[in-house]
């Protein structure tokens, strides 16, 4: 049954899309620092963000064009998020928060294009991003408040016998932050893309009569994935803002 085998080949491993391929093998001191498809898509995302911002604001008209108002909207969106969650103390960190949001958003959105690679579906990428945030925020907290920063772990208005337990919980919840931050983004992106691939496999294996069902489902799922791509970028950024708020203003 050659037709059957062919369909199985087409409905290939749904995890194949996450495979890392070395485009330019580089080795530095025994470490594999190859330029991979993952790196390529990160560079692409940065280029896309740059083009989006620079070309959009090239004219800088008083009455913005469609493109320019898209750029302005994304600026306003992040600026408002920072203002609502951190307040005036957060303003120096706006460039970082904005770059973070745009980078994750573009990585997620580029991943929605057929044949592309989703950088954020790899936990090492999201973990690296989350660790940058975590370490950065912790440093900011210590630089700003010195050892008084540790009062973040001591909740106020708690009876003394409960205090040790609550301090332990606070410390644990603090160290869980980078992990939950990275797992959320990674799991959402990976699950969504795997699901799309699995349903795409169904289209082939169910044939011309029933294949339409999963196909229509894919259309709906793609819409959902685009929402999630935006939402997860948003969640990552707003949590960064909340952590920054803790470090700057020392209250939850």
């Amino acid at each position, binding site marked *: 049954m050659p037709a059957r085998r062919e369909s199985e080949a087409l409905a290939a491993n749904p995890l194949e899309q996450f495979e890392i391929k070395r485009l330019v093998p580089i080795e530095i001191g025994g470490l594999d620092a190859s330029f991979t498809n993952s790196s390529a898509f990160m560079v692409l995302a940065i280029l896309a963000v740059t083009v989006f911002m620079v070309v959009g604001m090239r004219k800088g008209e008083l009455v913005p064009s469609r493109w320019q108002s898209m750029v302005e909207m994304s600026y*306003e969106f992040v600026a*408002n998020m920072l*203002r*609502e*969650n951190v*307040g*005036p103390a957060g*303003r120096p960190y706006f460039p970082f928060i904005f770059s973070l949001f745009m980078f994750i958003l573009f990585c997620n959105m580029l991943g929605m294009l057929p044949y592309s690679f989703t950088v954020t579906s790899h936990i090492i990428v999201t973990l690296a991003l989350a660790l940058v945030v975590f370490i950065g925020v912790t440093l900011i907290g210590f630089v700003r408040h010195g050892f008084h920063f540790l009062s973040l772990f001591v*909740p*106020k*208005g708690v009876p003394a016998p409960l205090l040790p337990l609550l301090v*332990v*919980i606070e410390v*644990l*919840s603090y160290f*869980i932050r980078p*992990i*939950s931050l990275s*797992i*959320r983004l990674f*799991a*959402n992106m990976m699950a969504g893309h795997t699901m799309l691939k699995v349903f795409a496999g169904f289209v082939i294996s169910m044939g011309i009569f029933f294949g339409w069902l999963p196909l229509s489902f894919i259309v709906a799922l793609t819409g959902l994935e685009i929402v999630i791509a935006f*939402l*997860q970028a*948003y*969640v990552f950024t*707003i*949590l960064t803002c909340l952590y920054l708020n803790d470090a700057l203003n020392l*209250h*939850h």
Partner: protein
Amino acid sequence: MTQDPAERRSLQSLDERIRRARGSAAGEGPPQGAPSSSALLGMAWRLAVELVVAPAVCGYVGWLLDYWLGTRPWFFVLFLLLGLVTGGVLAYRAMQEMIRRGELMDDEVASNGTTPGRRDDAGEKRE
């Protein structure tokens, strides 16, 4: 150089808008609108993941400690319990934040325009 009333009014409204823009740029003015429903959806994601990740990570840390110290299974059990509690606390906090924001949204709809101040009641959830 006499200004006609229409011109003066438009200048006044311009002045008003400039002042408002300055205020919001300094972070003093009200935030631009209450959080949207997508903000609430974002918090729902927070809640779900933290509830699951906390016990998983704590359990793993406990297991590692057991592995190093040869005290199986005590640290695993202890940290798993701590993780469950931590997950619960985190989810509880995220939920309270959600309720608070939801109320802000309702207030906004009710009073139509006057937004309440930023995180004024953040301390109360500590109780």
